[in-house]
């Protein structure tokens, strides 16, 4: 059982480039989340979704976009990469407000 799968695991971007971080889950969870983790800062919520077609901003949404066209997939889009977006990104899914299951993370460096 795959759980939550994130791709890629690592990526280096140049300033101004764009990319999409992929996230897919096979647990039929309605909630999905994107977090970024910076040293000493914990996890900051970027965007979340409570079901297909419904998304909402978290604490730090600027510079990112999401879509949720299916229950399984929740891609995160970076349009104009900036050094401040260097971070580790985690996708998670949950059944309602219960415990979330996390992917292994994507380590992104913007140079």
């Amino acid at each position: 059982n795959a759980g939550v799968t994130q791709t890629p695991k690592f990526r280096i971007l140049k300033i101004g480039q764009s990319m999409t971080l992929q996230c897919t889950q096979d647990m039929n969870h309605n909630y999905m989340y994107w977090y970024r983790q910076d040293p000493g800062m914990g996890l900051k919520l970027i965007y979340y979704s409570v079901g297909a077609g419904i998304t909402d901003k978290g604490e730090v949404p600027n510079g990112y976009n999401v879509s949720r066209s299916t229950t399984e997939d929740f891609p995160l889009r970076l349009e104009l990469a900036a050094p401040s977006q260097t971070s580790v990104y985690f996708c998670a899914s949950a059944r309602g407000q219960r415990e979330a299951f996390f992917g292994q993370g994507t380590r992104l460096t913007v140079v």
Partner: protein
Amino acid sequence: AQSVTQLDSQVPVFEEAPVELRCNYSSSVSVYLFWYVQYPNQGLQLLLKYLSGSTLVKGINGFEAEFNKSQTSFHLRKPSVHISDTAEYFCAVSTTGIGTASKLTFGTGTRLQVTL
């Protein structure tokens, strides 16, 4: 909106000693509470959760936590730690209620360093 405070950024402890990692939350509605552990270069793994019922909850690896509504706390404890418990620990909260689009909110984490 809910929030979580983990007052200790680092907790050093000797092997076989007891440990308590503190977590306080703020919310105007009822909550669900969680503790997650993160080993180096890995994702987060659920240690334990409080959804309802008994305020003392037991999790994996010998950890337990107690929900204290009056003090809005959910401290994590282990009576005897092992070197392998060295990791980052995160407290998290989500809110309950019908129709609530609840977000899972995390604290800043506590680094538990176990030494011989």
